[in-house]
């Protein structure tokens, strides 16, 4: 009895985490894909499109993991869950803004994702650890790419640097929720899924972005300050729906036509 209940509780927590990660990757990948044909140069359009595809591919991995936890079929989890059921950080669903906002958002998201994936890679669960390790390796190119964008826009001065600072100001309030989990992080540590507590991960996140954002001329000290002001120790509250609702309505533009095989 106790073992069954434990297994169910474990699946519920892990499934919840998988859905959070999946929703975040899917929404970000979806936003990234809106740049198709619109990037600042043709070669970049092609490169950025690969990053967008990677995010959706990673989302598919997490949805499949949630499916394995008994949550339902992957596509149904991706498309059919209502906005109020979504577990993403608000940052991932925000509309794109300009190129500076897009690359800085991606850079910050990727930095946090790398930190949490590194912790998951040390997980006691081989499926989670293996998936996290593979994802980390793929994310390396994203990190190199976005870091180069952020530093170059900052160092360029002029309009680019101004837009970058504007993007930073817009993204800052979303960082406490980004650096958090939709399920209780302590429960994840207890289950051996996360190797480190949230506070450690947040410190690692700040350490990871400090040098780059300084080089880019962005007030990085504000990140530690805002994280300290908003600890987010338990399970993160669901993000306000508006962005997700609009995004999901678009995403279901064809699916909503009727039950069918596509």
């Amino acid at each position, binding site marked *: 009895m106790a073992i069954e209940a434990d297994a169910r509780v474990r699946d519920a927590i892990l499934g919840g985490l998988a859905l959070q990660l999946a929703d975040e990757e899917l929404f970000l990948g979806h936003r990234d894909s809106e740049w198709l044909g619109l990037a600042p*140069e043709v*070669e*970049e359009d*092609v*490169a950025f*499109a*690969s990053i967008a595809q990677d995010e959706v591919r990673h989302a598919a991995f997490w949805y499949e993991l949630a499916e394995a936890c008994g949550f339902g079929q992957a596509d149904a989890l991706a498309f059919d869950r209502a906005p109020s059921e979504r577990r993403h950080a608000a940052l991932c669903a925000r509309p794109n803004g300009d190129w500076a906002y897009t690359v800085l958002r991606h850079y910050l998201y990727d930095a946090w994702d790398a930190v949490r994936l590194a912790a998951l890679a040390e997980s006691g669960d081989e499926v989670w650890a293996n998936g996290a390790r593979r994802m980390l390796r793929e994310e390396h*190119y994203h990190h*190199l*790419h976005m870091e*180069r964008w952020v530093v170059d826009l900052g160092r360029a001065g002029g309009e680019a640097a101004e837009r970058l600072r504007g993007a930073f100001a817009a993204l800052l309030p979303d960082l406490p929720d980004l650096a958090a989990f939709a399920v209780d992080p302590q429960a994840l540590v207890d289950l051996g899924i996360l190797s480190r507590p949230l506070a450690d991960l947040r410190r690692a996140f700040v350490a990871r972005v400090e040098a780059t954002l300084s080089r880019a001329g962005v007030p990085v000290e504000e990140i530690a300050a805002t994280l300290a002001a908003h600890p987010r120790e338990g399970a993160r509250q669901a993000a306000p729906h508006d962005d997700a609702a609009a995004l999901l309505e678009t995403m279901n533009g064809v699916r909503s036509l009727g039950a069918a095989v596509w």
Partner: protein
Amino acid sequence: MAMTQVEKDQVHERARHTSYDVYEIFVQASDLDPHVHVGSLLAPSPEWALQLARENFLRRADAVNIWAVRRSDVHATPDDPDWFAREFDRKYRDVSGYADNARRWKRFKAQAMNIDDVIADVRKE
């Protein structure tokens, strides 16, 4: 048939005032392969050229290394048909020039060797 030096200089001059440079991209498929030219792209710097080369040229191929070379650093042979001229046969330095070895070994009741057999033999435990 090639452009004159004056024409080439003019192209080079114009290129220098354009913000981005043309980078020729070379890709090494595996550790045992040489770098192979796959095309070119526009980029503001060598580091960007490498970043962009990965997705512009390697979406469907594996590689272990990429070279990006500014086009102005590539030196090419002139468009001169005689530059590569080889008119007389050079069979003395080719396997095909020794086709008679097999017949001659036969007289000694042995066979001609080929390099692939030697390689297979050395590799085998």
